[in-house]
């Protein structure tokens, strides 16, 4: 079920009413959340529910087994959990990729091997819930959290519908205890959740879906356009993916707040980052911190020799790229970011920008503006790789920008969509998020004293934009991961 669908618009109020109608009966509320989440997920393909059940059941039982076990046995149980979860992920997400790469590698040496007839369908959001449930068994193994006996709470934690298919990837230490606690309706939390949902829809429907129409047209046939148009394509794709993914996260966090849960922040205005390390502290935070905690630190982090730290950084970015998809473009995208990251790391400047940007000022300084622009340009290289279907497509895109750069927009039009109308929402997004850069989301009015009529006018204006400037509905990009 998509958040931006009529099905969900009917589903949500029903579940909301039933959930709070159950009063403080946590167990019943959790059962309802499991059922609702399974309906939500099964709306795509009910057969894949079995994967969630297998994943949940395996980790629940293995973690219970870890409680009284010896260290050796605990290690064995953790290994089991890793094998099952990563095995499922490997089969459903990476089988086709490895099989094809294997065949391609042999054909390089002149040996023709028949391609596998298996064409495995990727279950929606498998990377997200697999990582979430893995965080539980790893944290139980590390004794950061006690294994939970309440299976219902655990199943609800794994399948919690607001963040099931595209995150934020929650840690068991943060989210799981919330399923065992009494949840009371909180007016301020719920109304701020609604504001965050509204802002998320604006980013998805108005910004991302409109940018998608142009970006798709350019990336699908880059050979037809001049370099100037291809640059516009990168700019539009950057806003498409940001609007799409951060919009989803905003909706997910806002929905959770309606149900009395608090999810971790996933985006902190990444386009205002002053360098690549800061970008990674602001973009898809739940994933980058997951890799930090469960891959980078266990590998030794930056505590060993410089060479070891460099190796660890490369591994993390490589795995991060591979997590995004079974395609060499993602792998190279990850490595490219490692290359961008390393110089600052080696100079010890990778934590220079940890504070707020333009603190106490209306506008960024010239230096900050330059840094933001440089970071955006570096990211632009990455977006081409991220969006292209193959490495050779990406290379062709770069080549065309370098060899056919004329400022000409001939043949660049989409029926019913004028670019000046598209610039309005993109600019609005930038301006609002800049003003709100210290807040949690674009409509975070908690620390601002804006009179209600003015606030409501803003909400009505956004609803108007959703209706009249909404793009053609597209799936959320990150579902494929």
């Amino acid at each position, binding site marked *: 079920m998509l958040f931006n669908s009529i099905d969900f618009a*009917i589903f949500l109020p029903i579940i909301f009413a039933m959930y*709070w109608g159950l009063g403080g009966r946590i167990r019943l509320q959790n059962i309802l959340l499991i059922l609702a989440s399974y309906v939500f997920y099964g709306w795509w393909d009910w057969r894949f529910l079995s994967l969630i059940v297998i994943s949940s059941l395996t980790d629940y039982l293995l973690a219970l087994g870890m409680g009284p076990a010896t260290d050796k046995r605990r290690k064995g149980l953790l290994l089991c959990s890793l094998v099952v979860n990563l095995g499922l992920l490997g089969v459903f997400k990476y089988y086709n990729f490895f099989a094809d790469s294997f065949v391609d590698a042999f054909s390089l040496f002149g040996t023709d091997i028949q391609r596998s007839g298996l064409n495995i369908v990727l279950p929606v959001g498998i990377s997200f819930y697999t990582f979430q449930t893995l965080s539980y068994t790893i944290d139980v193994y590390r004794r950061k959290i006690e294994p939970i006996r309440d299976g219902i709470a655990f199943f609800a934690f794994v399948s919690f519908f607001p963040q099931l298919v595209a995150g934020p990837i929650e840690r068991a230490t943060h989210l799981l205890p919330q399923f065992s606690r009494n949840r009371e309706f909180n*007016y301020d939390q*719920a109304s701020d959740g609604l504001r965050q949902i509204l802002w998320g829809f604006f980013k998805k429907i108005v910004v991302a879906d409109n940018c998608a129409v142009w970006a798709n047209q350019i990336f699908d046939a880059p050979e037809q356009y001049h370099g100037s148009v291809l640059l516009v394509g990168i700019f539009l794709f950057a806003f498409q993916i940001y609007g799409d993914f951060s919009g989803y996260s905003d909706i997910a966090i806002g929905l959770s707040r309606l149900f009395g849960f608090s999810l971790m922040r996933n985006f902190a205005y990444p386009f205002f980052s002053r360098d690549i390390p800061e970008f990674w502290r602001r973009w898809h935070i739940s994933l980058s911190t997951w890799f930090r905690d469960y891959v980078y630190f266990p590998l030794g982090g930056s505590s060993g020799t410089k060479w070891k730290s460099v190796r660890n950084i490369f591994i993390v970015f490589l795995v991060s790229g591979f997590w995004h998809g079974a395609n060499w473009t993602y792998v190279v995208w990850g490595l490219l970011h490692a290359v961008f990251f390393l110089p600052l790391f080696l100079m010890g400047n990778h934590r220079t920008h940890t504070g707020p940007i333009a603190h106490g000022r209306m506008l960024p300084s010239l230096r900050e503006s330059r840094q933001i622009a440089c970071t955006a340009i570096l990211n632009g290289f990455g977006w081409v790789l991220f969006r292209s279907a193959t490495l050779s497509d990406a290379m062709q895109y770069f080549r065309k920008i370098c060899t056919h750069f004329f400022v000409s927009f001939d043949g660049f039009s989409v029926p019913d969509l004028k670019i000046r109308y598209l610039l309005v929402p993109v600019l609005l997004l930038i301006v609002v998020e800049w003003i709100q850069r210290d807040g949690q989301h674009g409509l975070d009015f908690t620390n601002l004293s804006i009179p209600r009529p003015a606030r*409501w006018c803003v909400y*009505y204006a956004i609803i108007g934009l959703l*209706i*009249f400037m*909404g793009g053609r509905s597209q799936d959320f990009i990150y579902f494929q991961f």
Partner: protein
Amino acid sequence: MKHFLKKIGLFLSPIAVFFISFGVWNHRYLAAPRVTNSYCLNEKLYRAPYDTLDVLAIGSSMTMINLNSEVLVNGLANPRFYNFGSWGFNIQDVYSFTELLVERYKPSIFIIVSNAVDFRPKDLEYDINEVRLYLKSSCRSLGYLNYLDLKYFIKKTMENRENMSAPDIYSSLFFDQWGGVALHKEGFEIRKYRWNHGLLFDQLLESNYVELEEICRVLNDRSTKLFFVLSPLREGLVDDNYRKSIKLHADRVRGIVESKGGTFVDTTLYKWEDKLFVDGTHLNADGGCRLSEILLQAIGEKK
């Protein structure tokens, strides 16, 4: 919680008032669900009968406008009839719909009014399986839930206000009860560009002739009688070259249709005065009556 729900109710009430007022003000013109990317086809599908049909017409605007429903229905002694003709339909679209419509409506007579313009490349986008489900559903209003698009709904409802009440404009959707549109010649403001616009024979797609063959085959297999009517062109547009191209096209279509047991009705063999047209290819109500009478004659001969 009560306070929260009260606030939401209060916040949503102006939006609800807006939509209710909009609906009441436009209740006769409410746009149909956006099942396809064609506004006209969406309106047609929404109004399509739920019952089976005796006679069914399908094709482009040539079918929708050039076929006069009243003359046809009277001439055939009141059969159950519906005109599915819609703007922009080409032969490939007709093929996509043929099996579905024959299966759904079980007509004994199937009419296509067309000329060479319908053999150009395809414009429309739709998922035929979605259309199938939509036509089969017992309540098409539920389509508003499946194909919700408020921007489209508001915009097209406003357009419907004009198009559904004016029989004297090119974009008229002043449907009669059978789905046809008879354009009134009185008050019709003819545009020079359209009046002088003919056919471009170099845009005809070979694949569309193959699709036509398939249409004939499907109808023949189901013992449904096909009447393929070649629609006329305004006399002032036709020079010798044009005449040659039309004849080539007509001969080819005749060959395909008749080889599969269908009837080819060539109205270009008749004399068509300019006063029967609203542009190069579309007839006004009088022209529509004339074309329908020629078709009736052909149907009569086949009986």
